[in-house]
Structure formats: C-alpha cells, structure tokens
C-alpha cells in the first residue's frame, strides 16, 4: 500500500463525532473568542440589571422633584437628575427592562413568524412559495424605520404595539434565511429517507428540517435583538414609542436634547446604555456565528 492509497483509505473512513465532543469543540471555540465572551458577559450583566432594577435602583424612576431638577451627577445621584428632578440612574435601569422586553419580545415574534413563513415557503415550493416570498420581499423593500413609523402611526404608541411593529420588521430576514436553509435541507438524503419511511410533511419540517437550522436562527436572534433595541430607541426618540412617564433609553435621549449643553448627562448616559447593549448582543451574535457556522469552522 503506497502513501496515496493510504491517504484515500483514511479519507473514506468517516468516524462519527460524538455529540459531547462536538459540544465541547463548540464551547472551546466560543471561549477562545474573547470578544464573544465579553459580549455574553455584558449581555448577561445588562439583563440581570434590568431584571433586578426595582431592587437595585435606589429611587422611584417616576418620582419628580422640581426643586432639584437638572442636578449634575453626585454621590447620591451618580448619573444626575433630569428636567423633572427624576433620578437618571433609576430611570436607565428601569428603561433597560423596557428595552430588553421589546428587544427579546419583538425578536421572538418576528423570529417565529419569519421562521414559519420561510419554512412553509421553502418546503412547499410552487405558487405558495412565490406568494410568501414576494410578500417578504415587499416588506423588506421598506426601510425598517419607515415601516415601524407607519405601523405605530396606525396602531398608536404602547409597549405591545411597539413589539408588534418591530416584530413585523424582523420577520422578513428570518423568513429569507430559513427559506434558503429549507431549500438546501429538503434535498438532503436524510430527508428522502425519512420521507421513505412514511414521515408526514409536518413531521419532516418539525423534526428533520427545523432542528438542522437552529444554529442559523440562534445567530439571527442575537444579532436582531440588538437591532430591535436600536429601532425601539429610534422610535422612542421621535416620540412614537412608549408614552410618558415610562422611561426608555430612546425617549430619555430625546428629552435630554433640550438640555444638551447645560445637562449633557441626560442624553449621554442612556446613549451609553444603548451602545453597550447593542455592542453586547452584536459581539455575542458574531461569536455564536463563529461557533455554529460549519463553513467558518473549516
């Protein structure tokens, strides 16, 4: 046996990689990516701060004190007070709850709707596929902020309406990715085998196609969560998000612009909160993509 023959033999011997070992490899890859670990840590910290905001915040975020309005940061109020004399730190912490609820809620909504659309379109093919994907194309043709504005102008402001509006914005990218992955997966031999042993359409989609694209969906979720938070901030900034007095980072920045020169902390601190949150989810998303994308692994 010469060397070339030996190499060919080794090529054809496919050793199944144990699941535990694969998870280990993925974990090692993720941990080796310092930016991703930083993103995960930051995202976790922000999430915990938001969840426990009522316990951490030292002041009522809605309590006004006109006599102490626009007080700069000091020992008691480390991020200062706003134009109504409200504690900026407490408002940022509580605003984080809104931002994360909107970020996660809208991605869950948009992800679910988009995944279902993409899955059904990709699997069914034909006219239904054309119809669904053209509808997705139409939605994608609108700039996200314009579409959000239109939906909120019709529905009016409010937490659930903002989630609905942003969820609608996010469903097309999910549909496109899932559609592409479904088209690829449905040609795979394992799917033909499953079909041959009598698996129905729903079973094929639920148990054989969907689990094989979880990686892509997870990456999309983390990246679009950041986008959803950013869009919410933009909508709140132009006054179409959450109604007063509920704080959101976007409306805090907007309200601070009136005092931008003499009280810059009103806009800077919520801006930093948005920056860190978007950065955290983007770094996390990039790290997950590195771990879950087989092409990048090669």
């Amino acid at each position, binding site marked *: 046996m010469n060397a070339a023959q030996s190499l060919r033999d080794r090529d054809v011997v496919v050793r199944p990689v144990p699941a535990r070992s694969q998870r280990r490899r993925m974990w090692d890859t993720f941990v080796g990516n310092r930016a991703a670990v930083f993103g995960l840590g930051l995202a976790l910290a922000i999430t915990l701060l938001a969840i426990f905001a009522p316990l951490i915040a030292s002041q009522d975020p*809605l*309590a*006004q004190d*006109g*006599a102490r*309005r*626009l007080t700069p940061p000091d020992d008691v109020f480390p991020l200062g007070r706003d*134009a*109504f*004399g409200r504690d900026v730190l407490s408002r940022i912490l509580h605003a984080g709850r809104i931002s994360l609820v909107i970020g996660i809620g809208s991605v869950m909504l948009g992800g679910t709707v988009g995944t279902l659309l993409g899955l059904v379109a990709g699997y069914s093919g034909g006219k239904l596929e054309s119809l669904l994907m053209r509808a997705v194309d139409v939605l994608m043709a609108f700039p996200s902020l314009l579409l959000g504005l239109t939906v909120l102008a019709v529905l*009016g*402001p409010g937490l659930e309406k903002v989630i609905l509006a942003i969820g609608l914005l996010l469903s097309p990218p999910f549909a496109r990715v899932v559609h592409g992955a479904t088209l690829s997966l449905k040609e795979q031999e394992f799917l033909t085998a499953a079909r041959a042993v009598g698996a129905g359409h729903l079973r094929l989609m639920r148990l054989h196609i969907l689990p094989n694209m979880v990686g892509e969906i997870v990456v999309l979720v983390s990246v679009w969560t950041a986008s959803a938070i950013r869009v919410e901030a933009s909508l709140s900034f132009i*006054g179409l998000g959450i*109604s*007063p*007095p509920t704080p959101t980072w976007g409306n805090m920045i907007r309200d601070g*612009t*009136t*005092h*931008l*020169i*003499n*009280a810059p902390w009103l806009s800077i601190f919520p801006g930093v909160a948005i920056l860190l949150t978007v950065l955290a989810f983007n770094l996390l998303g990039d790290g997950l993509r590195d771990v879950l994308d087989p092409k990048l692994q090669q």
Partner: protein
Amino acid sequence: MKVRLAPMLALSMATLLVIGACTSAAPTNTGPQTGRTGGILRFGQSAADVGTLDPHFASGTQDRSLIDMVFNALIRFKPGDGTQFEPDLAASLPEPKSEGAKQAWTFTLRKGVMCQPTDGVPAYELTSDDVVYSLQKSADKNRSAYAGEYSGMTFEAIDPSTVKVTLDSPLSKALLYPKLANYSGGYIVCRKAAEKLGADGLKTHPVGTGPFTFKRYSPKEKVELVANEAYFRGKPQLDGVEFLYMPDLTSRELGLLGGQLDVANGTADIAWVEKMERNADAKVDVFGVGEVVSIHFNSRIPPLDKLPVRQAIAYALDRAEFQSLTGARVSEQVFSPVPAQFMPGGLTQQETAAKGLDYKSDRDKAKKLLADAGLANGFTLNMVTSELPSYRVVYESMQAQLAKVGIKIDLKVVDHTSMHSTIRLDTNPIVVYVAFRPNADVYLSQFFHSDAIVVTGKKPNTNFSHYASIDSLIDQARSEPDTAKQTALWKDAQTKILQDMAAYPVMFTNLVYARRKGVDYGHELKSVLALYPGIDETTRLMKK
C-alpha cells in the same frame, strides 16, 4: 508623518486670539441712535413652518410675530408695553358717542399711509375703504377666525379718511380698543392686495402697511421680509428680516451662540435662561404677556361630571410643583382663570383663600373626596398632550401628582397641531391650555361662555369644560360702563367657576427670547401681545 504639535497649537491659539479680537468689538445696544444701521436680522422661531399669514386666522406664535412686522391696525399697543394704547393708522384715539341705544366710535385716518406693493397691485394710499373692508372681513366667520369678537358691530366709511364703528351694545375702551388694535382681527389688510391674492394667497403672502414688506416664502425654511421704505413712521433701521423656522430649541440656541441667528425664541425654563445668560454674547429677555396655564375639566366625561371628583383633582394638584419645573423668574402662580397680576377682574391668592377657593394642595382631602364619590381605588383617564415642552411639562407633572391619589393618566404625545385638533373634538377629559387673552371678557367668553363650548356651542371655541353657569355674568360685565362694577362682575364669575371647579388655574409663564448683544429692539420690553419682542422700524442691528 510626524506632526509637530507645539507649533500647530501656537498657530491655533494665535488664530483664535485674532478672531476673538475681531468679534469682541460688537457694541452694546445702549446709547442714542446715530444714523441707519442696516443689516438683515435673522430670527429663529420655534415652529416648523408657517401656519397662516392671514392675520384674521393666525393664532400661532410664529404667525402672530411675523404678521406684526407687516401689518398695522387703527390702534396699537405701545411697542414693548401691552398695557398702553396709542394711535396707529388712526390719527388719534377716539372717544365713544351714544346714538340712542347704540354707541359710535369715529376714527380719522393718518395721512400718507401706503399699502405695500405686490404682484399686479402697485403701492397706493390706504383709505377708509381698506379699513372697512378689513374689519368686515374680520367680522365674517367665513373669512376670519375671530368673527365672534365683532358681532354686533358695523363699519362705515364716512369719507376716504374717516371710519365709523357702530356698536349695538356699548363697550368700554378697555374692551373695544383691543378689538381694533394690532392683535388678531384688528390688523388691517389692504383691500386691493387681498382681493388680488384671494383667501389662499393671503395665507402665504401678507400685504399690509407695516415697517416690513413680504419678499419670499421658502416652505419649512424661512420667510424673508425687506424694509418698507415708504413706511409712514420712517424707513426702518434694518434692511430686512429673515424669519427662520427652527422647531428644535438646541438648534436655535446653537444658531444664536454661533452667530447664525440674531434673535431666537427660547423656552420658559429658568435653567435655559440662566444657561444662556452665562454666555457673554447673548442677552435673554423675559417679558410678558404672561400666557396663563389652566387645567380644564370636561364635565361631560365621567367621573369628571361629579363636582367632588373635580374638586379632588384640584386638591391633589400643587401649583408649587408645577412652578418648580419652570422657575419663579419665568412664571408666577395664578388663582383664577383671569390673571390678577396684570389684568383687572382676576382674583388674587388672598381673595380666593378668603373664599376657601384657593384649593391649596391637600392630598388627604383629595383621597377622601374620591372615596366619598365611590372612587377610593382611583380611576384612569386617557388624553393627548402636545409635544411642546410648555404643554408636556404641565401634563407630565399633573400625571405624577394625580398618581399620588390613585388617578392614572395615560398620555399620548402628539404634535402640537394634532393636539389642538383633538381637544376641539371634545375627546380629552382634561385639557391643559396655555394662552394669553387681552382682557377678562375675552378669557371668560372664550373659555367659559356656553356659546364657546367645543363642538356643540353656538360659536364653538375653547370652552373645554362645557361650563354654562356664568353666561349672564359675562354678558352683564361686557356692557357694564362702570369699571368697578365690571370688575366685580368678572370676579363673581370666576368665584362661580372655582366653586364649580370648571378649571384649575395653575400659573402664567412669561415669554423668553434670547438675542445677540448687538440687537437693539428700540423699546423696553414689558409685554408684547404678538408674543415676540417686537421688531419694528426702530430695531437696530449693531454687530459690525
């Protein structure tokens, strides 16, 4: 490439010193006028665009101020002092004459007043025909938003320079003069121009007799005015005015500090005033007229139909909390819908306290009243607020204060125009309104006479509370010739309003404008009904 920092810094410092030396030479605005200064005054106003420049429809601050530069009236408020009248197009202030049950006022027009030229209409001398045409337009509800002010009045041209105004019911000077002065329907439009331009043309092309002539309108950007060389009080000191629409306060602020603006509308917030005053190049003017902030309760919407609930809200509110958000220098608390501080007929704090109607904040009492009304657990009200800070501050402060007694307010922020439309559709259970009116009669007639009830009134206006219990007092006071008795009737009317808690008077806020140090308005600023400092032929720009 290696950058040598020290020489660059030295060069930069030297450049800054040279620029500083050049710019610090701007003179102040004191001292006598010596020769015409010229220059274009750039004015930043807090609006996105023109509303309408037809003076008989204009109500927004941005329109009132611009119109004031282009038009005159028979009488005018003394520049910078809205408490005194002086002749404008009329040669003198008239006295009334009785004609049976009627009352006649005869105005002799000033000679040589020229209507400004416009496309197809050359300049011509203003006559009584123009004045009568204009006043009849003001009295026509299809051509004026202020027609109600002129009902029962007829206008007649006796000769080219004499106008007779006849009133079905006599009015005192204090009530008649504002109707014919440079405010709302009193502005005189030139007939030939108005007919040539038509109703739509007048909205964006004002033609009057004032110190400045309309030159150009660039939508959502600016209106350009040029000096009216034929102005009857003499050629203006300025070459013109650029009236820029800048809704964002920070942009106006930076424009003024950066030298791109000469005058900028500020905000009634002491923090802003003090910040601007720290800048050596800027001067801030805080002056009247004070716009009164009142909270009107819609008595048609439950549970506000119950008096104890309205009283509970009044006791839950605290004027001091509202005022703390604007500052004492730019605002003052009021205790009746007509501000006693600068208008006869208003009730002072002492007067309302003596009657037990000052509604001093008492949240325990408010809770008890709510409990007695079967609303111990509070209730929720939905309403809209304008995006303008002057409104949002009041709505959001009220929201926080009422939350303390269990009343939840769900606020929806809309643009200012939408808020005005919405509240006139009778949908807001509570309406915050910020307004100046020239006298007690106008305040009471527009906000508390049954004719003025929104939607359903005979002449729907701004009676948001659906109040109809003081019509006779308002009507009686209007025709009362004795000033003391008239004032007493107005006070009685407001006592009734407070007893019924139709509206909760909060405070008045002054006008706040900032200017570059080189701007001299030409008059002291005490109060201006046109809601701006007053730019006229005497205004100078001394920055060169």
